[in-house]
């Protein structure tokens, strides 16, 4: 116990010792066309990551066109008025860059990691495709096949992904969060080139984007480059975003998925609040975040200790909660059954674990460990400029400024046991609960292996 106190004291000193300050290392600018630029200086190595984030993700899609945000992300590599199809990636590769792109419910992002002298080259290319993308119908058709293969790989043949898809579609009835990011297969099959082009015209604009640059750079030099390449792009009037507010859930929901697997699984999700960017001091979101760490922050957190180790109900168990997002938030707990256990037993075990915390609270030792890990993680995350840029970008997309990230860390440290107990009593109620279970089916073998008669070479 004495060691715990010392350790925490040492961590507090280290983190507050001003060795690192996001406030002084980070710089924000805005161009006349509305584009925002955030630069995080980090001079530990001669490398840079350049990202552009568009505030348009699958939650901005409309009925029958699910998946279009992600399809367009793929099409962004298919050329512009000046750059031929495939040339974008070839030019990034030539300067030694690593690149990719990602689509989420809240946003779409593109990035390149490069040696620092190559920043201008990749920025020129990225700015060009903010305004000038063009692709043929034929090329669209082929890439759509690729996206359908992606869906087969990551969802259709993956029971855990299918469960998540069912969970979201069951928990939400009005919010566009109910649709999968990659889109429903039928919507993909019926997607037209014009759908993707319209999406691009609607949302790809400097006034809907944030550029994040992190690494060994001079912020003013970056600003000059951004003005040169992104500056001339015209702002657009963005489509109206309908709120599509999820109505209050009035009763528990359940769904069962049958899919090939060995062990039964359960996912439980409660409707909970997220952090409102205008009310940064509200307690509940921070209490929920600490609760998620109490449940599954390290090997001896409650879910692993109780369900996996002590009671042998589960082979694995975990909890998750996101503090910030554009859409409605869920607190999720999932578990995979141990041999001979049922999802009913898992459900009881999970509810009992929550009930114990609601009744008895969490110990001071648990809170200290969570705070120690939180503070240490503030140093460890500095090991990756990519992770730093991701944190800034995703927070900004959710409407939370990078300036508030330190304040959030401080708020989390103030959370006490009674606030966690209160949050459980308020939000972990059956009427706001959705449960999806996996009923495992045998993966039927269709025939005996052919070729080599199934035998091995020896």
């Amino acid at each position, binding site marked *: 116990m004495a060691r715990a106190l010392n350790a925490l004291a040492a961590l507090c000193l280290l983190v507050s010792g001003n060795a690192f300050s996001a406030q002084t290392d980070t710089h924000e600018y805005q161009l006349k066309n509305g584009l925002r630029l955030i630069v995080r200086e980090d001079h530990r*190595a001669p490398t840079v990551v350049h990202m552009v984030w568009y505030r348009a993700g699958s939650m901005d899609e409309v009925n029958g066109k699910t998946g279009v945000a992600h399809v367009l992300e793929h099409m962004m590599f298919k050329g512009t008025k000046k750059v031929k199809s495939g040339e974008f990636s070839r030019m990034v*590769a030539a300067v030694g860059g690593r690149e990719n792109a990602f689509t989420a419910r809240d946003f779409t992002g593109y990035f390149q990691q490069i040696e620092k002298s190559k920043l201008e080259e990749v920025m020129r290319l990225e700015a060009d495709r903010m305004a000038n993308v063009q692709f043929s119908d034929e090329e669209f058709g082929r890439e759509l096949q690729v996206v359908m293969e992606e869906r087969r790989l990551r969802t259709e043949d993956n029971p855990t992904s299918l469960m998540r898809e069912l969970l979201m579609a069951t928990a939400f009835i009005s919010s566009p969060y109910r649709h999968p990011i990659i889109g429903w297969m039928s919507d993909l099959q019926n997607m037209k080139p014009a759908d993707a082009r319209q999406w691009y015209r609607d949302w790809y604009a400097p006034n809907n984007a944030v550029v994040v640059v992190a690494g060994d750079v001079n912020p003013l030099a970056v600003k000059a480059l951004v003005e040169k390449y992104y500056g001339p792009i015209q702002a657009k009037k963005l489509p109206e975003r309908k709120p599509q507010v999820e109505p209050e859930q009035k009763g528990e929901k359940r769904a069962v998925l049958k899919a090939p697997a060995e062990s039964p699984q359960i996912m439980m999700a409660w409707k909970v609040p997220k952090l409102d960017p205008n009310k940064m001091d509200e307690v509940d979101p921070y209490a929920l975040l600490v609760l998620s760490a109490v449940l599954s922050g390290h090997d001896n957190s409650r879910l692993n200790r109780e369900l996996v180790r002590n009671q042998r109900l589960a082979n694995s168990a975990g909890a998750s909660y996101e503090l910030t997002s554009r859409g409605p938030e869920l607190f999720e707990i999932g578990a995979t059954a141990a041999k001979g256990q049922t999802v009913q037993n898992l459900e009881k075990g999970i509810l009992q674990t929550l009930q114990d915390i609601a009744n008895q609270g969490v110990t001071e030792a648990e809170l200290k460990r969570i705070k120690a890990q939180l503070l240490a993680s503030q140093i460890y995350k500095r090991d990756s400029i990519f992770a730093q840029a991701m944190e800034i970008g995703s927070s900004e997309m959710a409407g939370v400024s990078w300036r508030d990230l330190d304040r959030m860390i401080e708020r989390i440290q103030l959370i006490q046991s009674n606030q966690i107990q209160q949050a459980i009593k308020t939000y972990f109620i059956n009427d706001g609960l959705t449960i999806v279970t996996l009923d495992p089916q045998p993966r039927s073998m269709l025939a005996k292996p052919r070729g080599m008669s199934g035998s091995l070479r020896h």
Partner: protein
Amino acid sequence: MHRIHIFCKGLVSSIAMLLAAQAYAVLPIQEISLSNGTKAYLIQTNALPMIDIEISIDAGSRYDPKNQSGLAALTAAMLTRGISWQGSTLNEAQQADAIAELGASISASASGERTIVRARSLSKPELFNPLLQLLVASVSKPIFDQSILMREKQRVSSAIQEGDTKPEVVLQKRFRQIVFGNYPLARSPSIESIAAIQEGDLKRFHQDFYRQDRVIVNLVGNIDHAGAKQIAEQIIGALPAKGPTIPVLPPFERSPIEPESQRVIRIPFQTQQTHIAMGMTAIPRDNPDYFPLLVGNYVLGGGGFVSRLVGEVRDKRGFAYSVFSYFQPGRDTGTFEAGLQTRNDQADQALKVLQETVARFIEDGPSEAELAAAKANLINGYPLRLDSNRKLLDNLSAITWNQLPLNTLDIWTQHVAAVKKDDVRNAFKRHLDMRRMISVLVGSAP
């Protein structure tokens, strides 16, 4: 605590990294002589107040007894499931809590060639010193509690059964079985092999393999030579100096020439996609053809979105989301693998494209333009391989395990620059051969 669900343009970065684990020396590798005559290695960087330690143990799953596949992995897993501690014990819960309250982490796992234990801690002595003691005890004094072992065996057995329902797991299991042939890495853990492992087996394996002459300590971070020496001495000093002679493993033999009818293996499986892996044995890391193969594979199937395989399979035909090739060179073994996943009804067409693309590359090698593009990417992008403590440790680990020269990082780009078109073509011809290449398909192709 983070859960952003994301779909990406491609699954490329991890695969491109497999072959490419080397880099340059802004920061030198320091060799540290220890009192028992062995060495430890350090890359000192004071950019962040943290230290990473890796203990690399010549105790990979290739040393699993024939009927006890999974022994090395279970032994590694038990290092964080309870330890002897200052005349008493810390049970698994106390051990986990003690590590967590320091804001640190300790992990252990076994791969084919070696077992790796890693710790990450802040360097402040009040935090680091107790963490080091926990790390030393984790490696040297696990208690192998019988009831916890029972539980872990159950979990592993369930995971094996779960894996047997997943096409990618079934594919890799069979692929390894074929490519490794008579070498022990052909085997995978089974329900029976896990059941056969007892407490005494773990204790014996730990006693026999976790010892001074089979261990390398690698350090990266905010610590100097003298400090690193002290750390390494403590770790090494807690282990036995030597042990019994370990029986020599069977040789790692080249994939034989197979009759044409035996080169494709189909495992019927009820899925929407057929998963395909094609490959054979290749080179260990110290082979002089390492760099020509590295550069060549960038062109063939390693280079992000610009490789020949991506062009032929994905861009031209829309057959697959992920298509790749890589060499996986170890200290004593090495394999080549190319693969993709595609809709069942086009699996045979996709396999044909995969085979033809690889065969043509082995025959003709890269064009001058492709070679130049590959070298430009590898050389220009070199700093990206070294820009974090984590990446520095990965490089240090590969260099010391594979017994490469300590200036490997300094001369890496020179080696890449020196590769010529014929070097690539000759190296591919020397090491790969379509007659020796086996393709495994898992899926319900008609």
